[in-house]
Each structure stands twice: as C-alpha cells, then as structure tokens.
C-alpha cells in the first residue's frame, strides 16, 4: 500500500490530464439531480433589485467579458437577461473599457432570449457597444452618469440615439434603476462613481476567484447584490425557474472540486509514504 501510494506521485503528467478529462466528462453524459437549495444573500439581492424596477426606469448592464471569462460570465448574463425579459423590464447594454470583443459576446447571449420574449431592439433593449479611455473606466462611468447621450451618441451598429426610442428616456443616471456589471473582475469604480455619488444600486457578476474580494462591499451595502461564478448563476436560474448553463456547470463543478480535493489528499499521502520509506533503514 505504502509503495503504491509513493509511486502515485511519479505518474506522468499526461496520464493525469487524461484522467481529469475522463472524470469531468461524466457529469455531461449522466444527468445528476441538483438538490433544492436556498439562494444566498448576494444572489437574492440582485434578484430583488430587478424585481423592484419601476416601469419608467431601465436596468443598465455593463457586459465586459470575452472568451477569457465566458466560462462563468456567460451564465451570469443569460440568467439575468432572462429575468429582465420575463418581468418586462427594459435594459441598456454597454461594454466599458475591458475588452473590445465584449459587445459581440453580449449580443450572442441576449439576442435569442430577447427575440423569444418578443423584445424589440431599440424599443425594449439596446446594445450601446464598446467604449474605452486612456485613464481607465472611471472617467467614462463618471461622465456617463451625468449625460448618457453625450458619451454614447450611437449604438453598437452606428444608429443614432434619436432613432432608438428607448434611449429617449435614458438621459442620465436618474433614469437608471440599477447597474449590473459582469466581467472577470468588475472595477470598484462602479461603486465609487455610481453608488457612492448617486446612491443608485450596483450589482456585480464576477468570476468565483474574485468573489472573496468583493464580499466586503456587499456587507457594507455598496453592492446590492452579486452573482459569484456559476454558483451565483445557478442560484439565480433557480429563482427565475429556468435552469440553464449555470446549473449544468455547477453540477459538473462538484466533480471537479472533489477531484482536486482527492488529488491533494492522495498527493499528501503519497509524500508521507515516501518519507516513511526513506526513513526506514535500507
């Protein structure tokens, strides 16, 4: 047993990789049921913010993710857009400063959902495209709160603000009910310049890795809600009653996480076994 454990540590990397793929494919082939759960405070906060949107206001979505973070951000955008469409809340999408590829990704997620819900582009939702600045996103956020049209005079396809009826009523931060920023690590400048200056609720959708560093903002009420990784998306999908990508990936993550824990335990046992053998007189 000891020698077997000791040998485990010297297996060629590539076998480990193959084993990883084999184990992680299981949850996609076999369906594992999701236990009924309770949404966390963070997820609930965003859900309530969307629920409480009055008809005359819109939700601003900053969708600033691309292939580098779509593994978690995709589901986070999808579930919230579905909720907005179910509730008939109108929304404006922007992509501020992170990646110029973001508008195409946002469109890929939103268009099918919006079409199915009977949302008309320009009247019910708008994609305002990408904007960047030299000194970081803060300057754009700060300016956009004051005058939306000046900073974004056209949408992602070059149509003018005047041609898009929805934007007739979105002139400044006062017309926005809440801001939802989805990217790898949303910039705290959203908190400073939107929530800090105007008190408009801000919610984040971030990769799991960034979750721990944003919880202090949730505790202080600077964030009204937050979706953390696929777990957050899965909880949201449950609240909306439409399990999708988040649910599927978080189920699969059970396998992944267990595998990492198992690998670390076996690795430690192996190291311990090797040490014991070395200590034994030859």
């Amino acid at each position, binding site marked *: 047993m000891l020698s077997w454990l000791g040998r485990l540590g010297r297996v060629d990397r*590539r076998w480990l990789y193959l084993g990883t793929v084999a184990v992680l494919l299981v949850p996609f082939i076999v369906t594992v049921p999701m236990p009924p759960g309770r949404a966390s405070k963070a997820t609930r906060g965003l859900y309530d913010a969307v629920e409480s949107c009055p008809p005359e206001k819109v939700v601003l979505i900053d969708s600033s993710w691309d292939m580098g973070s779509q593994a978690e951000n995709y589901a986070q955008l999808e579930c919230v857009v579905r909720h907005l469409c179910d509730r008939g809340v109108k929304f404006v999408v922007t992509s501020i400063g992170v990646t110029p590829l973001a508008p195409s990704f946002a469109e890929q997620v939103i268009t099918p959902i919006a079409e199915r819900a009977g949302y008309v582009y320009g009247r019910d939702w708008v994609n305002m495209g990408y904007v960047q600045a030299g000194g970081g996103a*803060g300057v754009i956020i700060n300016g956009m709160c004051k005058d939306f049209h000046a900073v974004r005079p056209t949408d992602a396809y070059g149509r003018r603000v005047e041609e898009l009826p929805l934007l007739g009523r979105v002139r400044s931060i006062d017309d926005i009910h809440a801001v939802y920023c989805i990217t790898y690590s949303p910039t705290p400048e959203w908190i*400073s310049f939107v929530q800090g200056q105007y008190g408009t609720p801000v919610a984040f959708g971030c990769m799991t890795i960034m979750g721990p560093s944003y919880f202090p903002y949730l505790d202080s009420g600077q964030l009204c809600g937050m979706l953390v990784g696929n777990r957050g998306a899965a909880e949201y999908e449950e609240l909306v009653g439409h399990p999708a990508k988040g649910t599927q990936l978080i189920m699969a993550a059970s396998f992944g996480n267990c595998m990492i824990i198992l690998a670390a335990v076996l690795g430690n046992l192996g190291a311990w076994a090797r040490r014991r053998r070395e200590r034994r007189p030859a």
Partner: protein
Amino acid sequence: MTHWLVIWIGAFVTLITFSYLVKDNPVYRFVQHAALGVTVGIALVVAWYHVLKPLWWTPVLEAFEGTRAPAAGLWLLALAPGGMWYFQLSRKWFWISTLVSGLFIGTAAGLAFKGMILLILPQVAASIKVVNPWAHADGPGGQALLASLNGLVFTVGLLTTLLYFFFSVRTDNRLLRPPMRVGRVMIMVALGAMFGSTVMTRMAYLLDRLQFLYGTWLAPLFSG
C-alpha cells in the same frame, strides 16, 4: 443556430490548443498567432466604429457640412494630443508622447483620489459592529448573541490583520506577538477562501470547454 463550420473549426482549435499539454508544436503556435491577429484586427475596427467615429469623426464632419453647430469642429484639434501617442515609435521624439501619457496619468490619479475616498468611507462605517449583545435593538436574544459573536470575530480579525500589516512599530514583544499570530491565521483563512474560489474558476474554464466539445460538437453528431 450556429453554423456547422463554426462549431467544427471551434472544436479543431480547442483540440489543437490542448495538444500543447502533450508537447509544444507548430500547429499550436500557428493557431496562437492567428488568434492574436484576429483579436488585434477586430479591436482596431471596434475602436473606430464604436468610439472614434461616433464621438469624434461624425461631429467634426457634420460641423463642416453645416448640419451641426460649428463649435463641434473644434474637436478636430484633438488630433494634436492624439497624434502625440505615435511619437512613442521614435526613440528621439519619445518624450513628446510623455506629454499626452502624462495627461492621462494625471487624470487617472485625480479620479483615483475621489474614487478611493468614496469607496473607503462606507467601508469604515460598515466595519462598526455591535459586539455587546444588550446593545441590539431587540435585546439579547439568540439572534443577537450570534450577531455579536460574529461581530466580535470580525472586529478581532480586522484589527489583528491591520496590526499584522503595521510596520513602523516594534512588535517583537510579548504583548503584540499573540495578536499578530491571530492576524496571520485570519489571513490564512481568507486566503483559503480565495484559494477555493481560484480552484473553482479554473475548473469552470475546463468544464466550459468540455461542455462545448461534448454538448455542442459531439453529442449532436450522434443524436443525428
């Protein structure tokens, strides 16, 4: 519905990328450079179509055509500082580009002061926790006791961590050493939370790709 060609190329590129795990190979490097080229190309076009054209080119054009107030034509002057960036390409005239980059560094700094203070004050306020179970509004019940306990752990954690990162006072005495140890343990617990989260994110990347390979590419092939 996504075109079959897009899915097949996507699957091919995914497998080629994973082939790097076995061995670095020329096909991988080819795909890597192709992807970089596409990124740069698309970014160029987006910068023009989403930013410069609507915000700068159109107003200037319209001012000259007379369909907009002539003052908008002044935006043409932005070419002067904007052009300064390109002196970065010359060793001799590099310093000219530092004029415009300096402007941006200054802007970012000016906004950073404002952003930081707006961020930190609510954090200070939120750190004020009620530790005394009798000070809760509804008296010292079970919930209040729990909240006080959590408040105590929080306050101790906050202060010991701050002490751990405090460098201008001698701390190698008997009074300060135990709280510093508590601080380090607290930091380790927080790092554990970050560690678990990091692992989950990295797993999500792989799971997402496997979902694509199996769910989008392979499974439909077999189910017809």
